[in-house]
């Protein structure tokens, strides 16, 4: 057995899990899908004294769309979202195909992936682009953490140690919006070296009325590109303007270099992927979300 010793707490409801978090404080870790936590235990990168298993908490299940907002419960697996997205959201569907492999997605949860906050992960960047948020519950209190306030550093979020992320919300793109998703990874299912998601909607005069451009794998947290979006808003997305926006977006990034790719290479790839994602988004404008 590889993991360090821990106490195992089988929570039966969200309230039960929150109570356990209050009791153990930052000594506890929530076990949901376990597809990141169990390897971290096996490698002894994490040594929690207690694991609070939420897999028996029926009140954390579910995946509901209402008024253009998709609410994903803490126990919804990535595969559940993938199945829903096949008809509900081609952008999410495309992105999920890049998340590890089917046997991992069968267990891994959407919310767990979001709050694990791996900077090379696809879903946190989509939470940013889809104006998403995470609902956090502690004993006696609940708060909404918007995506742009969630990610602080690699593997670090603004969730407190006694808070349980009970669900995540994604605002689905406006009707007629086009999307693009691009990623470069060494092998299928590997973590991204660089990835990019784009969403664009056009008004009657073909000017951009809604723009979202997000990156992952380019620094400590997922990034939504202010400069890239500002270059496009209110203007016609001609090929020249897309190149301008992609360059502006990449110039504002400060990726890290590592043995897989240098910082300079990541920046170059980011500009290329942004151009491709935005071009695809323009081509898809007017279709279904």
């Amino acid at each position, binding site marked *: *057995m*590889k*993991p360090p*010793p*821990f*106490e*195992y707490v*089988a929570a039966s409801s969200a309230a039960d899990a929150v109570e356990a978090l209050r009791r153990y404080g930052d000594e506890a870790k929530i*076990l949901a899908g*376990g*597809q990141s936590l*169990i*390897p971290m235990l*096996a*490698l002894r990168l994490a040594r929690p004294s207690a*694991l609070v*298993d939420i*897999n028996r908490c029926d009140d954390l299940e579910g995946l509901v769309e209402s008024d253009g907002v998709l609410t994903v419960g803490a126990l919804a697996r990535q*595969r559940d979202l993938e199945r829903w997205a096949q008809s509900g959201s081609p952008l999410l569907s495309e992105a999920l*195909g890049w998340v*590890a*492999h*089917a*046997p*991992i997605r*069968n*267990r891994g949860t959407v919310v767990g992936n979001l709050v694990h906050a791996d900077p090379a992960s696809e879903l946190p960047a989509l939470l940013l682009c889809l104006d998403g948020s995470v609902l956090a519950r502690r004993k006696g209190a609940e708060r909404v953490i918007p995506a742009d306030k969630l990610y602080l550093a690699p593997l670090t979020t603004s969730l407190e140690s006694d808070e349980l992320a009970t669900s995540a919300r994604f605002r689905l793109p406006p009707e007629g919006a086009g999307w693009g998703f691009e990623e470069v990874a060494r*092998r*299928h*299912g590997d973590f991204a070296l660089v990835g990019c998601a784009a969403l664009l909607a056009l008004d009657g005069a073909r000017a951009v009325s809604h723009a979202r451009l997000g990156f992952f794998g380019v620094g400590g947290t997922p990034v939504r590109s202010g400069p890239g979006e500002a270059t496009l808003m209110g203007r016609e997305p001609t090929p020249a303007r897309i190149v301008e926006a992609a360059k502006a977006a990449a110039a504002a990034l400060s990726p890290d270099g590592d043995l897989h790719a240098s910082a300079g290479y990541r920046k170059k790839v980011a500009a290329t992927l942004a151009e491709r994602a935005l071009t695809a988004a323009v081509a898809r404008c007017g279709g279904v979300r």
Partner: protein
Amino acid sequence: MKRTVRVKVNGRDCEQVVDVRATLAEFLREDLDLTGTHVGCEHGVCGACTVLFDGLPVRACLMLAAQADGHEVTTIEGVASDGEALHPIQEAFAAKHGLQCGYCTPGIIMSVCAFLKEHPAPTEGEIREMLSGHLCRCTGYHFIVEAIAEAARALAAAGPRP
């Protein structure tokens, strides 16, 4: 810390006291002697330990045995219905040389069992995407792809299975 789990494995009910640190793979191999589930990397990358958990392929090294309490697990030992004859997927792997050393094979077969239910007539691209979750150091994958395509044809010809 110990915990009692009740799990249905290959159709048989099992009750066992497990250490909470034990993975599902360790439980299957060491407590139940089902050593067909191979363990490669032990952190979810290689796919050798893939089993069916409530009918869906999962990594047995990325689950605690304690989490299997109340659930159903199918391993490579439970794939052929009577334990004597091979399952058509296994037959296809033998016929098409879809294995050499055989270390990765049980995990691949478990994934293929679920995959062919969802994709009864898969394209080569779909097969290769599914296989991306499994590492094989011997075959170069080509014969595995052919074996899966052959298995799909054989299952389709045999008609719907119970």
